[in-house]
């Protein structure tokens, strides 16, 4: 290795420490930015600047009469006393706690099944599971809306066969109905992430394990599940963020459920939307966004602290 970098001047012939190996391998200098730079520039423009702007406007209030004025933390104190906001947070928290584990478990099981190579028609299953992800939310809701219809939908047909009067879109079961749509949409997406991490395991490892007399279940437990841990971390983080930002499904469903079933403060994102676009309260909505971001990050951080650390090694 020829040393050309002033920030790494180490005389030849000295014993290498572990730290040195690390440095040698990865050259600690600025040239990494050449690669990360383009992403960082666009990211700054699309995310960081608007977030800073949102933070800025969250300290103002705009009135139809009286115009705009600086109000300090008024929006934030109002938010903390806002029952509608907290009920929305509570609703997505419950949603996240139930829907995310179910969806990820299904995705992981499906990934294991496909990866086991024990299925007839593996390719078909991989595509079939992933297909819903390709369907736009507007279309998925149209389709599920039909299935859910308690009179003309499939649920309606089941009701007339079974003699029941089950109504999936009643306020009590609505959240579960939405959870089902979200699960349907994203189970294949998560399956693919799990699957791709499983397919990085060299087959020689399975062969070695089989020769050592390991059972199928042991291979899953000892080799496959640990390998999935890394992707589990990221699917959990992205799913939590996704659930806390629930918007598309309930807002499209609004056009088919009873008018009073999905309120404008059903989820924090819907609340922000209504405040901002119907109520002209962009400033208050900005404060809401900042608080939600902090809550989401805190939860994601607590849940996945360790695995994130691992990635940062």
């Amino acid at each position, binding site marked *: 290795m020829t040393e050309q970098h002033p920030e790494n001047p180490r005389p030849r012939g000295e014993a290498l420490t572990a730290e040195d190996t690390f440095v040698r391998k990865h050259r600690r200098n600025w040239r990494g930015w050449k690669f990360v730079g383009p992403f960082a520039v666009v990211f700054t423009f699309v995310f960081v600047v608007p977030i800073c*702007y949102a933070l800025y406007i969250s300290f103002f209030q705009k009135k139809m009469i009286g115009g705009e004025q600086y109000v300090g933390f008024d929006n934030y104190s109002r938010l903390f006393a806002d029952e509608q906001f907290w009920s929305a947070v509570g609703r997505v928290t419950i949603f996240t706690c139930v829907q995310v584990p179910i969806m990820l478990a299904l995705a992981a099981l499906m990934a294991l099944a496909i990866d086991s190579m*024990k299925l007839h028609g593996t390719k078909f299953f991989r595509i079939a599971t992933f297909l819903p992800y390709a369907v736009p*939310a507007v279309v998925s809701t149209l389709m599920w809306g039909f299935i859910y219809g308690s009179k003309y939908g499939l649920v309606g047909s089941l009701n007339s066969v079974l003699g029941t009067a089950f109504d999936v879109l009643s306020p009590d079961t609505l959240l579960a109905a939405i959870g089902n749509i979200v699960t349907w949409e994203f189970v294949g997406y998560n399956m693919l992430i799990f699957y791709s991490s499983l397919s990085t395991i060299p087959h020689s490892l399975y062969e070695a394990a089989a020769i050592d007399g390991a059972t199928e279940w042991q291979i899953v437990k000892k080799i496959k599940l640990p390998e999935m841990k890394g992707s589990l971390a990221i699917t959990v983080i992205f799913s939590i963020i996704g659930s806390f930002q629930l918007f598309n499904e309930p807002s499209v469903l609004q056009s088919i459920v009873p008018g009073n079933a999905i309120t404008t403060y059903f989820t924090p994102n819907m609340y922000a939307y209504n405040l901002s676009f119907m109520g002209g309260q962009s400033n208050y909505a900005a404060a809401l966004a900042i608080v939600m971001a902090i809550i*989401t990050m805190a939860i994601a951080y607590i849940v996945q602290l360790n695995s994130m650390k691992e990635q940062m090694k």
Partner: protein
Amino acid sequence: MSISTIIRGDAERRQSRRAQKSRMKKVSRDEARERKRYRRMGFSNPANPSRSVLLTVLSALMAVYCLFPLVWLLINVTKTQGDFVTTFGLGFGSTFALFDNIARVFQYQDGIFFRWFVNTILYVVAGAGGATLLAILGGYGLSKFRFPGRKAVFAVVIGAISVPGIALAVPQFLLFAKLGLTNTPWSMIIPSLISPFGLYLMWIFSDQAVPDELLEAARMDGASEFRTFFTISLPLLAPGIVTTALFTIVATWNNYFLPLIMLKDSDWYPLTIGLNQWNKQASTAGGEAIQNLVVTGSLITIIPLILAFLLLQRYWQSGLAAGAVKE
């Protein structure tokens, strides 16, 4: 399978594809034979196990769940508007109007659907293509270099995507409006260039697919970082690139909220917004209900994605099969 394969000449590509195909066929034939042999011997090879009926049936339940709503879609594209609102959802209508519906989708409102289709392709090529490129570079950089601020990047990205997008829409819109970018394709393309998940995926792939020793060797030969990246790393990253492209394409193709805020001129609409506008037309005074066209348009919207997935999957799969990843 690598990027260079794609760049190579057409004839050569076809030839190599044919060779690849016959090779795959031979492999699967051999594998089937091997399974049979092993079964007779009462021994199971974990790399090529025998097929399980029970597991297939359980997975089939999952597949039914995933495909069922799409069956509804397939049935309903064959109906006229009248049949759509009057007949049972899972049964066919009195007339088979599929081809008529398809023709009308492309004729309605002076063929604006085709315009939306072209727009969507533009956004996908520029937006998702760019997003994939940025993610490749970024993920590779994060994986293979230790630079000041590296640890901050991941934290900042995760932090930023935790901010509810809806509330960001207003500042984003104002920013774009001040730059005069709203209601132009740029307002769709620029935000699509960022795919945090793609960045993460490429990071992981770079970690796994590109051995540090290989880079070290190249550096010792005096190759520049970009040269090393293009000649050595990129081919190794191909399977990851295809996967990332797949995710960014789907995300851009189905983006709904961004164009809703940024675009007003229906000449620039992507398919999702256009379809929703058609859907809402049924409840607008003076509007004509065209749910049959909405459903048909939806199917046409999904088909290219499914095709892209099937086509990309072949690269992706052969990439894995070629053992580019960690073997």
